[in-house]
Protein backbone atom coordinates (compact mmCIF):
# COMPACT_ATOMS: atom_id res chain seq x y z
CA UNK A 1 0.00 0.00 0.00
CA UNK A 2 1.18 3.48 -0.82
CA UNK A 3 2.23 5.89 1.90
CA UNK A 4 -0.29 8.63 2.54
CA UNK A 5 1.11 12.13 2.92
CA UNK A 6 -0.69 15.48 3.26
CA UNK A 7 -0.09 17.90 0.36
CA UNK A 8 1.01 20.39 2.99
CA UNK A 9 1.78 19.93 6.69
CA UNK A 10 -0.30 21.62 9.36
CA UNK A 11 -3.47 22.41 7.43
CA UNK A 12 -5.70 19.65 8.77
CA UNK A 13 -5.97 16.75 11.17
CA UNK A 14 -7.52 13.57 9.87
CA UNK A 15 -7.57 9.86 10.22
CA UNK A 16 -9.67 7.34 8.30
CA UNK A 17 -11.22 10.19 6.31
CA UNK A 18 -12.56 11.99 9.40
CA UNK A 19 -11.08 15.18 10.71
CA UNK A 20 -11.06 18.95 10.48
CA UNK A 21 -9.24 21.87 8.96
CA UNK A 22 -7.06 23.58 11.54
CA UNK A 23 -6.95 27.35 11.68
CA UNK A 24 -5.92 29.88 14.29
CA UNK A 25 -8.03 32.27 16.33
CA UNK A 26 -6.59 35.44 17.78
CA UNK A 27 -7.48 35.90 21.45
CA UNK A 28 -7.03 39.66 21.09
CA UNK A 29 -9.20 40.53 18.05
CA UNK A 30 -11.08 37.28 17.49
CA UNK A 31 -10.03 36.92 13.84
CA UNK A 32 -9.90 33.36 12.56
CA UNK A 33 -7.40 32.60 9.83
CA UNK A 34 -6.72 29.52 7.75
CA UNK A 35 -4.03 28.29 7.47
CA UNK A 36 -2.57 29.03 10.90
CA UNK A 37 -0.26 32.00 11.10
CA UNK A 38 1.57 33.75 13.93
CA UNK A 39 1.32 36.55 14.82
CA UNK A 40 -2.33 37.35 14.03
CA UNK A 41 -2.49 38.60 10.44
CA UNK A 42 -5.24 41.02 11.40
CA UNK A 43 -3.92 42.78 14.54
CA UNK A 44 -0.42 41.27 14.92
CA UNK A 45 -1.47 39.92 18.34
CA UNK A 46 0.80 37.17 19.67
CA UNK A 47 -1.78 35.17 21.58
CA UNK A 48 -3.42 32.69 19.23
CA UNK A 49 -5.09 29.34 19.70
CA UNK A 50 -5.46 26.54 17.22
CA UNK A 51 -9.07 25.94 16.30
CA UNK A 52 -10.72 23.17 14.38
CA UNK A 53 -12.86 24.78 11.72
CA UNK A 54 -16.49 23.88 11.13
CA UNK A 55 -16.91 20.85 8.92
CA UNK A 56 -19.85 22.47 7.16
CA UNK A 57 -20.25 25.67 5.26
CA UNK A 58 -22.02 27.23 2.31
CA UNK A 59 -20.95 27.27 -1.29
CA UNK A 60 -19.99 30.90 -1.95
CA UNK A 61 -19.15 30.23 -5.60
CA UNK A 62 -17.81 27.47 -7.84
CA UNK A 63 -16.50 26.70 -11.31
CA UNK A 64 -16.03 23.59 -13.40
CA UNK A 65 -12.55 23.68 -14.93
CA UNK A 66 -12.14 22.32 -18.46
CA UNK A 67 -8.37 22.64 -18.81
CA UNK A 68 -5.78 20.33 -17.25
CA UNK A 69 -3.64 21.56 -14.38
CA UNK A 70 -0.48 20.11 -12.90
CA UNK A 71 -2.30 17.55 -10.76
CA UNK A 72 -5.81 17.32 -12.17
CA UNK A 73 -7.44 16.22 -15.37
CA UNK A 74 -10.57 18.05 -16.56
CA UNK A 75 -13.33 18.37 -15.85
CA UNK A 76 -12.86 19.13 -12.18
CA UNK A 77 -14.65 21.54 -9.85
CA UNK A 78 -13.25 24.08 -7.41
CA UNK A 79 -14.96 26.62 -5.23
CA UNK A 80 -14.93 28.89 -2.22
CA UNK A 81 -16.74 27.62 0.85
CA UNK A 82 -17.97 30.14 3.38
CA UNK A 83 -17.56 28.86 6.93
CA UNK A 84 -19.50 30.01 10.00
CA UNK A 85 -16.21 31.38 11.36
CA UNK A 86 -16.55 34.18 8.78
CA UNK A 87 -13.82 33.05 6.42
CA UNK A 88 -13.82 31.43 3.00
CA UNK A 89 -11.76 28.36 2.18
CA UNK A 90 -10.80 27.39 -1.36
CA UNK A 91 -10.85 23.77 -2.39
CA UNK A 92 -11.69 21.07 -4.84
CA UNK A 93 -15.33 20.10 -4.99
CA UNK A 94 -16.23 16.46 -5.45
CA UNK A 95 -19.59 14.84 -6.01
CA UNK A 96 -20.72 17.63 -8.31
CA UNK A 97 -21.81 15.24 -11.06
CA UNK A 98 -24.33 13.59 -8.72
CA UNK A 99 -25.38 16.77 -6.91
CA UNK A 100 -25.52 19.81 -9.23
CA UNK A 101 -23.84 22.78 -7.60
CA UNK A 102 -25.69 25.91 -6.62
CA UNK A 103 -24.43 29.05 -4.92
CA UNK A 104 -25.51 28.96 -1.26
CA UNK A 105 -25.88 25.18 -0.97
CA UNK A 106 -24.62 23.35 2.12
CA UNK A 107 -21.18 21.77 1.75
CA UNK A 108 -19.11 19.50 3.92
CA UNK A 109 -15.37 19.03 4.17
CA UNK A 110 -13.91 15.65 3.35
CA UNK A 111 -10.34 14.36 3.46
CA UNK A 112 -9.39 12.51 0.32
CA UNK A 113 -6.62 11.67 -2.06
CA UNK A 114 -5.72 14.67 -4.26
CA UNK A 115 -3.23 12.96 -6.55
CA UNK A 116 -0.76 10.08 -6.64
CA UNK A 117 2.98 10.17 -6.95
CA UNK A 118 5.23 7.14 -7.46
CA UNK A 119 5.09 5.70 -3.96
CA UNK A 120 2.72 8.14 -2.35
CA UNK A 121 -0.90 9.14 -2.15
CA UNK A 122 -1.08 12.86 -1.61
CA UNK A 123 -3.94 13.73 0.74
CA UNK A 124 -5.85 16.98 1.12
CA UNK A 125 -9.22 18.45 1.90
CA UNK A 126 -12.04 18.63 -0.58
CA UNK A 127 -15.64 19.73 -0.22
CA UNK A 128 -18.74 17.76 -1.09
CA UNK A 129 -22.39 18.78 -1.25
CA UNK A 130 -23.81 18.05 2.18
CA UNK A 131 -26.17 15.13 1.91
CA UNK A 132 -27.92 15.57 5.26
CA UNK A 133 -29.00 19.17 4.71
CA UNK A 134 -28.64 22.19 6.95
CA UNK A 135 -25.84 24.71 7.30
CA UNK A 136 -23.17 24.65 9.95
Amino acid at each position, binding site marked *: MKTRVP*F*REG*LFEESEGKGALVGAKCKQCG*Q*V*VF*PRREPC*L*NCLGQDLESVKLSRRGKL*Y*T*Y*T*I*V*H*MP*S*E*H*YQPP*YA*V*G*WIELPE*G*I*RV*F*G*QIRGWQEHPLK*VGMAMEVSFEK*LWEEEEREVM*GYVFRPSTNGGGA
Partner: protein
Amino acid sequence: MREVAIIGVGSTVMGKFPEMLPYELGARAARAAIEDAGISPRDLQFAYCANLYGGMVIGQAVLAEVGITDIELTNIENACTGGATGIRKAWWDIASGLYDIGIAIGVESITTSAMAGKLITPARGDITGELGMNMVARFALAQRRYMDTFDVSLEQIAKVSVKNHHNGCLNPYSQYKKEVTIEEIINSRSICEPITLLQCCPSTDGAAAAVLVSGELAKKYTSQPVIIAASVLKSGDYSFRWEDMTFSDMTSKCTREAYEMAGLGPEDINICELHDAFAVNELLHYPELGFCKRGEEVRLLEDGVTELGGKLPVNASGGLLSKGHPVSASGVAQIAEIVWQLRGQAGERQVANAKVGLAHVIGGEVTGLESGAVSVHILKV
Protein backbone atom coordinates in the same frame (compact mmCIF):
# COMPACT_ATOMS: atom_id res chain seq x y z
CA MET B 1 7.13 66.88 -6.06
CA ARG B 2 7.85 67.82 -9.65
CA GLU B 3 5.40 67.42 -12.47
CA VAL B 4 6.16 64.47 -14.75
CA ALA B 5 5.21 64.16 -18.41
CA ILE B 6 5.24 61.42 -21.03
CA ILE B 7 6.84 62.58 -24.29
CA GLY B 8 7.16 59.33 -26.20
CA VAL B 9 5.39 55.98 -26.40
CA GLY B 10 5.83 52.92 -28.55
CA SER B 11 4.40 49.46 -28.91
CA THR B 12 4.79 46.35 -30.98
CA VAL B 13 1.77 44.92 -32.69
CA MET B 14 0.33 42.41 -30.21
CA GLY B 15 0.11 38.78 -31.29
CA LYS B 16 1.91 35.47 -31.34
CA PHE B 17 5.55 35.76 -32.42
CA PRO B 18 7.31 32.44 -31.81
CA GLU B 19 10.24 33.60 -33.97
CA MET B 20 10.94 36.64 -31.80
CA LEU B 21 12.81 36.46 -28.51
CA PRO B 22 11.55 38.65 -25.67
CA TYR B 23 14.43 41.14 -25.91
CA GLU B 24 13.72 41.68 -29.61
CA LEU B 25 10.12 42.60 -28.84
CA GLY B 26 11.26 44.90 -26.03
CA ALA B 27 13.84 46.61 -28.22
CA ARG B 28 11.28 47.24 -30.94
CA ALA B 29 8.96 49.00 -28.47
CA ALA B 30 11.81 50.93 -26.82
CA ARG B 31 13.10 52.19 -30.17
CA ALA B 32 9.59 53.32 -31.14
CA ALA B 33 9.16 55.22 -27.86
CA ILE B 34 12.58 56.87 -28.14
CA GLU B 35 11.88 57.90 -31.72
CA ASP B 36 8.44 59.19 -30.76
CA ALA B 37 10.03 61.25 -27.97
CA GLY B 38 12.59 62.70 -30.36
CA ILE B 39 15.48 61.96 -28.02
CA SER B 40 18.74 60.09 -28.36
CA PRO B 41 18.87 56.76 -26.52
CA ARG B 42 21.92 58.18 -24.75
CA ASP B 43 19.75 60.87 -23.12
CA LEU B 44 18.11 58.25 -20.90
CA GLN B 45 19.32 58.28 -17.29
CA PHE B 46 17.44 55.26 -15.98
CA ALA B 47 15.15 52.45 -17.05
CA TYR B 48 12.62 49.95 -15.74
CA CYS B 49 11.75 46.78 -17.56
CA ALA B 50 8.79 44.65 -16.48
CA ASN B 51 8.65 40.98 -17.40
CA LEU B 52 7.23 37.78 -15.91
CA TYR B 53 8.36 34.80 -18.01
CA GLY B 54 11.43 35.92 -19.94
CA GLY B 55 14.29 35.09 -17.58
CA MET B 56 17.29 36.89 -16.18
CA VAL B 57 18.06 40.63 -16.68
CA ILE B 58 15.83 41.01 -19.67
CA GLY B 59 15.90 44.82 -19.42
CA GLN B 60 19.64 44.79 -19.99
CA ALA B 61 19.19 42.59 -23.07
CA VAL B 62 16.47 44.92 -24.40
CA LEU B 63 18.41 48.12 -23.87
CA ALA B 64 21.74 46.75 -25.08
CA GLU B 65 19.98 46.29 -28.45
CA VAL B 66 18.98 49.93 -28.43
CA GLY B 67 22.39 51.32 -27.44
CA ILE B 68 21.75 51.97 -23.78
CA THR B 69 24.18 50.62 -21.17
CA ASP B 70 25.79 51.79 -17.94
CA ILE B 71 22.67 53.37 -16.40
CA GLU B 72 20.46 52.55 -13.42
CA LEU B 73 18.28 49.74 -14.76
CA THR B 74 15.77 47.77 -12.70
CA ASN B 75 13.89 44.69 -13.81
CA ILE B 76 10.38 44.36 -12.39
CA GLU B 77 8.07 41.42 -11.79
CA ASN B 78 4.56 42.29 -10.56
CA ALA B 79 2.42 39.95 -12.69
CA CYS B 80 -0.14 41.80 -14.82
CA THR B 81 0.67 44.99 -12.92
CA GLY B 82 4.37 44.84 -13.82
CA GLY B 83 4.23 47.37 -16.64
CA ALA B 84 2.24 49.88 -14.62
CA THR B 85 4.69 49.36 -11.74
CA GLY B 86 7.50 50.46 -14.06
CA ILE B 87 5.56 53.61 -15.01
CA ARG B 88 4.93 54.31 -11.33
CA LYS B 89 8.60 53.86 -10.40
CA ALA B 90 9.78 55.99 -13.32
CA TRP B 91 7.25 58.66 -12.34
CA TRP B 92 8.63 58.73 -8.79
CA ASP B 93 12.28 58.81 -9.87
CA ILE B 94 11.53 62.01 -11.80
CA ALA B 95 8.91 63.53 -9.45
CA SER B 96 11.37 63.19 -6.58
CA GLY B 97 14.09 65.03 -8.49
CA LEU B 98 16.45 62.05 -8.63
CA TYR B 99 16.49 61.92 -12.45
CA ASP B 100 15.11 64.00 -15.30
CA ILE B 101 14.48 61.46 -18.05
CA GLY B 102 13.94 57.72 -18.19
CA ILE B 103 12.11 54.89 -19.89
CA ALA B 104 9.63 52.26 -18.69
CA ILE B 105 9.30 49.12 -20.77
CA GLY B 106 7.04 46.11 -20.45
CA VAL B 107 7.75 42.95 -22.41
CA GLU B 108 6.28 39.46 -22.55
CA SER B 109 6.75 36.54 -24.86
CA ILE B 110 4.42 33.77 -23.78
CA THR B 111 4.96 31.71 -26.95
CA THR B 112 8.70 31.33 -26.35
CA SER B 113 8.23 30.65 -22.61
CA ALA B 114 7.44 27.49 -20.67
CA MET B 115 3.90 28.87 -20.23
CA ALA B 116 3.02 28.46 -23.91
CA GLY B 117 -0.42 26.84 -24.25
CA LYS B 118 -0.97 26.63 -20.49
CA LEU B 119 -3.28 28.37 -18.09
CA ILE B 120 -1.42 30.80 -15.88
CA THR B 121 -1.31 29.48 -12.32
CA PRO B 122 -0.04 30.82 -8.99
CA ALA B 123 3.66 30.32 -8.14
CA ARG B 124 4.82 26.76 -7.52
CA GLY B 125 3.79 25.46 -4.09
CA ASP B 126 1.02 28.02 -3.59
CA ILE B 127 -1.81 26.31 -1.69
CA THR B 128 -4.70 27.29 -3.94
CA GLY B 129 -2.51 26.47 -6.94
CA GLU B 130 -1.91 22.95 -5.59
CA LEU B 131 -5.68 22.60 -5.20
CA GLY B 132 -6.37 23.47 -8.85
CA MET B 133 -6.57 27.28 -9.02
CA ASN B 134 -5.67 29.13 -12.20
CA MET B 135 -6.27 32.67 -13.40
CA VAL B 136 -9.36 31.79 -15.44
CA ALA B 137 -10.89 29.90 -12.51
CA ARG B 138 -10.17 32.87 -10.26
CA PHE B 139 -12.45 35.09 -12.33
CA ALA B 140 -14.90 32.35 -13.30
CA LEU B 141 -15.56 32.07 -9.56
CA ALA B 142 -16.28 35.80 -9.35
CA GLN B 143 -18.45 35.60 -12.48
CA ARG B 144 -20.58 32.73 -11.13
CA ARG B 145 -21.19 34.65 -7.91
CA TYR B 146 -21.91 37.87 -9.80
CA MET B 147 -24.38 36.25 -12.20
CA ASP B 148 -26.22 34.51 -9.38
CA THR B 149 -26.38 37.37 -6.88
CA PHE B 150 -26.96 40.24 -9.34
CA ASP B 151 -29.14 38.28 -11.79
CA VAL B 152 -26.87 39.03 -14.74
CA SER B 153 -26.97 36.83 -17.86
CA LEU B 154 -24.13 35.42 -19.89
CA GLU B 155 -25.49 37.34 -22.89
CA GLN B 156 -25.04 40.60 -20.99
CA ILE B 157 -21.47 39.74 -20.00
CA ALA B 158 -20.67 38.68 -23.58
CA LYS B 159 -21.56 42.18 -24.76
CA VAL B 160 -18.28 43.42 -23.24
CA SER B 161 -16.40 41.07 -25.51
CA VAL B 162 -18.48 42.12 -28.54
CA LYS B 163 -17.68 45.79 -27.84
CA ASN B 164 -13.96 45.30 -27.26
CA HIS B 165 -13.50 43.04 -30.27
CA HIS B 166 -15.21 45.71 -32.36
CA ASN B 167 -12.76 48.29 -31.04
CA GLY B 168 -9.85 45.95 -31.73
CA CYS B 169 -10.83 45.90 -35.42
CA LEU B 170 -9.99 49.62 -35.50
CA ASN B 171 -6.58 49.27 -33.84
CA PRO B 172 -3.54 48.32 -35.95
CA TYR B 173 -1.77 47.14 -32.76
CA SER B 174 -4.54 44.66 -31.88
CA GLN B 175 -3.93 40.91 -31.83
CA TYR B 176 -7.50 40.25 -33.00
CA LYS B 177 -9.13 42.30 -35.70
CA LYS B 178 -12.35 40.36 -35.92
CA GLU B 179 -15.90 41.10 -34.84
CA VAL B 180 -17.52 38.46 -32.65
CA THR B 181 -21.18 37.87 -31.87
CA ILE B 182 -22.86 37.05 -28.57
CA GLU B 183 -23.71 33.59 -29.94
CA GLU B 184 -20.10 32.90 -30.96
CA ILE B 185 -18.88 33.97 -27.52
CA ILE B 186 -21.36 31.85 -25.59
CA ASN B 187 -20.90 28.83 -27.86
CA SER B 188 -17.11 28.96 -27.85
CA ARG B 189 -15.22 26.30 -25.88
CA SER B 190 -15.79 26.31 -22.12
CA ILE B 191 -12.58 27.04 -20.18
CA CYS B 192 -13.80 27.45 -16.60
CA GLU B 193 -17.60 27.64 -16.39
CA PRO B 194 -19.21 30.07 -17.06
CA ILE B 195 -16.19 31.56 -18.85
CA THR B 196 -15.85 30.46 -22.47
CA LEU B 197 -12.86 31.03 -24.73
CA LEU B 198 -14.12 34.27 -26.27
CA GLN B 199 -14.71 35.79 -22.85
CA CYS B 200 -10.95 35.43 -22.21
CA CYS B 201 -8.04 37.59 -23.26
CA PRO B 202 -5.72 35.67 -25.58
CA SER B 203 -2.21 34.52 -24.80
CA THR B 204 -0.11 37.36 -26.21
CA ASP B 205 3.45 38.30 -27.07
CA GLY B 206 4.28 41.96 -27.22
CA ALA B 207 6.01 44.95 -25.70
CA ALA B 208 5.38 48.61 -25.03
CA ALA B 209 7.50 51.49 -23.76
CA ALA B 210 7.13 55.06 -22.54
CA VAL B 211 9.64 57.86 -22.12
CA LEU B 212 9.05 60.02 -19.03
CA VAL B 213 10.61 63.40 -18.32
CA SER B 214 10.21 66.24 -15.84
CA GLY B 215 7.48 68.70 -16.76
CA GLU B 216 10.14 71.38 -17.22
CA LEU B 217 12.22 69.28 -19.62
CA ALA B 218 9.14 68.19 -21.57
CA LYS B 219 8.82 71.66 -23.08
CA LYS B 220 12.20 71.22 -24.74
CA TYR B 221 11.02 68.17 -26.67
CA THR B 222 7.35 68.66 -27.41
CA SER B 223 4.48 71.08 -27.52
CA GLN B 224 2.17 68.18 -26.66
CA PRO B 225 3.32 66.67 -23.35
CA VAL B 226 0.94 64.31 -21.56
CA ILE B 227 1.00 64.97 -17.82
CA ILE B 228 0.86 62.17 -15.26
CA ALA B 229 -1.83 63.55 -12.94
CA ALA B 230 -1.88 60.48 -10.70
CA SER B 231 0.18 57.35 -10.24
CA VAL B 232 -0.85 54.83 -7.59
CA LEU B 233 0.28 51.27 -6.93
CA LYS B 234 -0.97 49.02 -4.12
CA SER B 235 -0.48 45.43 -3.02
CA GLY B 236 -3.43 43.25 -2.14
CA ASP B 237 -5.02 43.00 1.30
CA TYR B 238 -5.83 39.78 3.16
CA SER B 239 -8.80 37.97 1.71
CA PHE B 240 -10.35 37.50 5.17
CA ARG B 241 -10.98 41.27 5.04
CA TRP B 242 -12.45 41.01 1.54
CA GLU B 243 -16.18 41.10 1.96
CA ASP B 244 -17.42 40.53 -1.58
CA MET B 245 -15.44 38.61 -4.18
CA THR B 246 -17.32 40.40 -6.96
CA PHE B 247 -16.07 43.83 -5.84
CA SER B 248 -12.34 44.55 -5.87
CA ASP B 249 -11.54 46.52 -2.71
CA MET B 250 -8.00 46.96 -4.01
CA THR B 251 -9.16 48.64 -7.20
CA SER B 252 -11.65 50.79 -5.34
CA LYS B 253 -9.07 52.02 -2.81
CA CYS B 254 -6.40 52.56 -5.45
CA THR B 255 -8.81 54.54 -7.63
CA ARG B 256 -9.92 56.78 -4.76
CA GLU B 257 -6.29 57.61 -4.05
CA ALA B 258 -5.66 58.34 -7.72
CA TYR B 259 -8.61 60.73 -7.97
CA GLU B 260 -7.45 62.49 -4.83
CA MET B 261 -3.90 62.81 -6.14
CA ALA B 262 -5.12 64.17 -9.49
CA GLY B 263 -7.71 66.47 -7.93
CA LEU B 264 -10.17 64.94 -10.37
CA GLY B 265 -13.18 62.65 -10.18
CA PRO B 266 -14.77 59.96 -12.32
CA GLU B 267 -16.90 62.64 -14.03
CA ASP B 268 -13.69 64.11 -15.48
CA ILE B 269 -12.55 60.92 -17.23
CA ASN B 270 -12.99 60.96 -21.02
CA ILE B 271 -11.37 57.62 -21.79
CA CYS B 272 -10.42 54.52 -19.82
CA GLU B 273 -8.30 51.46 -20.44
CA LEU B 274 -9.09 48.89 -17.77
CA HIS B 275 -8.11 45.33 -16.97
CA ASP B 276 -10.58 43.28 -19.02
CA ALA B 277 -8.65 40.02 -18.82
CA PHE B 278 -12.10 38.43 -18.87
CA ALA B 279 -15.31 40.03 -20.12
CA VAL B 280 -16.89 40.04 -16.67
CA ASN B 281 -13.99 42.02 -15.23
CA GLU B 282 -14.85 45.10 -17.24
CA LEU B 283 -18.37 45.20 -15.78
CA LEU B 284 -17.13 44.59 -12.25
CA HIS B 285 -14.55 47.37 -12.54
CA TYR B 286 -17.04 50.09 -13.62
CA PRO B 287 -18.34 50.78 -10.09
CA GLU B 288 -14.89 50.24 -8.54
CA LEU B 289 -13.56 53.01 -10.79
CA GLY B 290 -16.48 55.24 -9.82
CA PHE B 291 -18.14 55.16 -13.24
CA CYS B 292 -21.48 54.01 -11.83
CA LYS B 293 -23.11 52.68 -8.71
CA ARG B 294 -22.98 49.01 -7.87
CA GLY B 295 -25.62 47.13 -9.82
CA GLU B 296 -25.74 49.71 -12.64
CA GLU B 297 -22.77 48.33 -14.60
CA VAL B 298 -24.80 46.34 -17.13
CA ARG B 299 -26.94 49.39 -17.84
CA LEU B 300 -23.82 51.50 -18.40
CA LEU B 301 -22.69 48.99 -21.01
CA GLU B 302 -26.09 48.46 -22.63
CA ASP B 303 -26.77 52.21 -22.82
CA GLY B 304 -23.60 52.54 -24.91
CA VAL B 305 -21.86 54.87 -22.45
CA THR B 306 -18.63 52.85 -22.62
CA GLU B 307 -18.55 52.16 -26.35
CA LEU B 308 -16.75 54.29 -28.93
CA GLY B 309 -18.97 57.31 -29.45
CA GLY B 310 -20.33 57.03 -25.90
CA LYS B 311 -19.67 59.47 -23.08
CA LEU B 312 -16.90 57.38 -21.53
CA PRO B 313 -15.35 54.91 -23.97
CA VAL B 314 -13.72 52.00 -22.15
CA ASN B 315 -11.02 49.93 -23.84
CA ALA B 316 -11.14 51.80 -27.13
CA SER B 317 -7.92 49.96 -27.98
CA GLY B 318 -9.76 46.63 -27.94
CA GLY B 319 -8.64 46.05 -24.36
CA LEU B 320 -6.93 42.91 -23.21
CA LEU B 321 -9.77 40.89 -24.77
CA SER B 322 -8.99 41.90 -28.34
CA LYS B 323 -5.76 43.92 -28.40
CA GLY B 324 -4.25 41.12 -26.31
CA HIS B 325 -2.65 40.71 -22.90
CA PRO B 326 1.15 40.48 -22.97
CA VAL B 327 1.15 40.20 -19.17
CA SER B 328 3.91 42.58 -18.03
CA ALA B 329 3.58 44.80 -21.09
CA SER B 330 -0.14 45.48 -20.70
CA GLY B 331 0.23 48.28 -18.15
CA VAL B 332 2.59 50.18 -20.46
CA ALA B 333 0.51 49.41 -23.56
CA GLN B 334 -2.50 51.00 -21.84
CA ILE B 335 -0.44 54.13 -21.15
CA ALA B 336 0.64 54.22 -24.80
CA GLU B 337 -2.99 53.99 -25.92
CA ILE B 338 -4.08 56.82 -23.63
CA VAL B 339 -1.19 59.02 -24.78
CA TRP B 340 -2.19 58.47 -28.42
CA GLN B 341 -5.82 59.24 -27.57
CA LEU B 342 -4.97 62.42 -25.67
CA ARG B 343 -2.76 63.60 -28.53
CA GLY B 344 -5.46 62.83 -31.08
CA GLN B 345 -3.33 60.19 -32.82
CA ALA B 346 -5.57 57.15 -32.31
CA GLY B 347 -6.82 56.91 -35.88
CA GLU B 348 -10.14 55.19 -36.45
CA ARG B 349 -10.64 54.51 -32.75
CA GLN B 350 -10.00 58.14 -31.75
CA VAL B 351 -12.19 59.44 -28.93
CA ALA B 352 -13.16 63.03 -29.74
CA ASN B 353 -11.71 65.74 -27.49
CA ALA B 354 -10.23 63.35 -24.92
CA LYS B 355 -8.42 65.40 -22.27
CA VAL B 356 -8.21 63.03 -19.32
CA GLY B 357 -7.62 59.28 -19.40
CA LEU B 358 -7.48 56.57 -16.75
CA ALA B 359 -5.52 53.30 -16.92
CA HIS B 360 -6.13 50.40 -14.56
CA VAL B 361 -4.42 47.03 -14.19
CA ILE B 362 -4.65 44.34 -11.53
CA GLY B 363 -3.03 40.95 -11.26
CA GLY B 364 -1.17 38.21 -9.52
CA GLU B 365 -2.71 35.36 -7.56
CA VAL B 366 -1.43 34.22 -4.19
CA THR B 367 -3.14 32.32 -1.38
CA GLY B 368 -4.56 34.56 1.32
CA LEU B 369 -4.72 37.86 -0.58
CA GLU B 370 -7.41 39.45 -2.73
CA SER B 371 -4.90 39.71 -5.56
CA GLY B 372 -1.24 40.60 -6.04
CA ALA B 373 -1.11 44.21 -7.11
CA VAL B 374 -3.23 46.96 -8.63
CA SER B 375 -2.31 50.22 -10.27
CA VAL B 376 -4.23 53.25 -11.49
CA HIS B 377 -2.76 56.08 -13.56
CA ILE B 378 -4.53 59.25 -14.64
CA LEU B 379 -3.08 61.14 -17.59
CA LYS B 380 -4.13 64.56 -18.86
CA VAL B 381 -3.33 67.17 -21.47
